């Protein structure tokens, strides 16, 4: 092979290498740009509208300036509470089962797969299901059924929390070293008790983190609420009635023709994103610091 050919080939390869490096850096910048843009816009457009009124007042009728999204914040909180009652126990329970009792079995794999299926269900379809299961049927002895309600919205969100909570619970429990379990068994404690009191407690920071992650995810969901919780212009803490929610309100206001409502949408988005960023940062901080301080 002549040295000229080698030199040509060599400079072509070096040039390609350089080009790819530049492209990769460009790709990184293009990806980070929308993120920065969104945050900057939210701060710029939303910060000015964030005043005390925002957090304490309900929306004013069209045409009047001012007002806030206090009812939506309350509503979101309530919906999250209902969702947690459903999502957290089932998720943690399933996670404990997958890690401690069924590890490696076909049943466990089937459950894990089903949880992934549940995770991938589009949020709008989840809303459809909740609508069909709760809003539609008029069963006299079952409360909350037969009409739009906060309960229905909470159920939809709760279903969506389950896979996240389940997966993180299982992962956290798997990280507890077997030595801990063996120590408990060596003390003569029957299996299920040792599992609950010791293993879960060891992994509890991580499990709580998983729940926070699930919160952050469903706090911003709009689609499941469109025809379950429906939204509400007034104060309401009634589980049996339609209720306002932050993302839902943002959606409605964003598509409206009123500048005033656009302002509120930006402010609401800012509040929502701050909460989510806090949750995600906290999760990252806890997991990077080593979750199982009690284990070693």
């Amino acid at each position, binding site marked *: 092979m002549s040295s000229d050919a080698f030199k040509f080939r060599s400079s072509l390869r070096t040039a390609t290498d350089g080009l790819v490096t530049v492209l990769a*850096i460009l790709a990184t910048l293009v*990806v980070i740009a929308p993120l920065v843009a969104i945050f900057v816009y*939210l701060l710029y457009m939303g910060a000015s509208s964030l005043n005390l009124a925002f957090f304490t007042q309900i929306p004013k009728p069209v045409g009047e300036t001012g007002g806030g999204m206090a009812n939506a914040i309350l509503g979101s909180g309530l919906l999250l509470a209902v969702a947690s009652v459903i999502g957290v126990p089932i998720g943690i329970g399933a996670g404990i089962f997958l890690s401690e009792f069924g590890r490696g079995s076909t049943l466990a794999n*089937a*459950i894990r797969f089903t949880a992934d299926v549940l995770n*991938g*269900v589009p949020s709008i379809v989840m809303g459809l299901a909740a609508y069909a*299961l709760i809003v539609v049927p008029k069963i006299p002895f079952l409360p909350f059924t037969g009409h739009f309600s906060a309960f229905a919205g909470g159920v939809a969100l709760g279903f969506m929390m389950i896979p996240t909570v389940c997966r993180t619970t299982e992962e956290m429990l798997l990280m507890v070293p077997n030595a801990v379990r063996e120590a408990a068994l060596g003390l003569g404690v029957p299996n299920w008790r040792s599992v609950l009191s010791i293993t879960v407690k060891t992994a509890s920071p991580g499990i709580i983190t998983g729940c926070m992650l699930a919160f*952050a995810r469903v706090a911003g969901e709009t689609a499941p609420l469109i025809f379950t919780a429906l939204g509400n212009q007034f104060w309401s803490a009634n589980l049996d009635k339609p209720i306002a929610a932050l993302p839902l309100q943002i959606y409605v206001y964003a598509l409206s023709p009123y500048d005033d409502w656009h302002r509120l949408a930006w402010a609401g988005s800012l509040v929502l994103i701050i909460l989510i960023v806090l949750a995600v940062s906290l999760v990252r901080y806890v997991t990077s610091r080593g979750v199982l301080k009690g284990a070693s």
Partner: protein
Amino acid sequence: MLLCALSIFVIVLLIAFELVQRSQLTWHKFGLGFFYKVFSDSYSNTPVYWDPVNELFSARPFVYGTLVSSFLALLMAIPLAVGLAIFLTEMCPGFLRSPLAFLTELLAAIPSVIYGLWAVFVLVPLLREHVNPLLIKTLGWTGLFDDSNPTGLGYFSAGVILAVMILPIISSLTREVMIAVPHSQREAVLALGATRWEMIRMGVLRNARIGIVGAIILGLGRALGETMAVAMVIGATPEIHHSLLANGSSMATVIANEYAEAVSEMHLSALTEIGLALFLVTIVVNGFAQVLIWAVTRGTPAQAR
């Protein structure tokens, strides 16, 4: 505990059951043709797809819109996501890695409705003023870009915002499978006298390609079901147009927009059938993606990033 685990089965089955049950009306009336039929307006001979008043329902424009916007999103997201993953895994200086990975995680955590808000007020005007005219001028000859829609909404805008949304998923999964490639493979390629890109291409990407395909398919799964941001920028018009700049609709969009106000049983059934289709498609797509990713990372314990 077992009860909790089994209740997941029950929930999924309930969802499937309800979806099937409530779409029976249109299923019996239209059969499989629901998804591709074209009706004709008797007066003007133009195609009519979605006419709740006359109870004519064809999901064709929504299937079209979902596919077009998702495909556009993948086209734009894949090179960027893989580029980002390559940068973070093989080229990034150590101190930047963690912050950049964190930023990518944040991108994934932003709710759909906030993406939609930003898209409506910032992205769409940007595209409308600066990008779309450029596209029409340079690529108009393909027939894919015409100027019949001055609003800036449409398939293309939906594709762009979808791309931004699925990027983090594809990127972080690609990173995971790239990290799972053993270091010895990289060294083997370098020892033969390869440049860094050749090492990445032959030693890492090649070994991880199945997982990368899985990551892409997972991104597709997310794009197919994405509702809020798409509903806000696609134009919500139940028609089919060749131009990517035209208004359209998607499966998730029509459900979100029309369900609360739908009155007739047939209308509700049609919307539910679309929901059922979305449900089944996302199960298949996501399941396939999980299998691919599992095949690549199986046996590798979770590694530090």
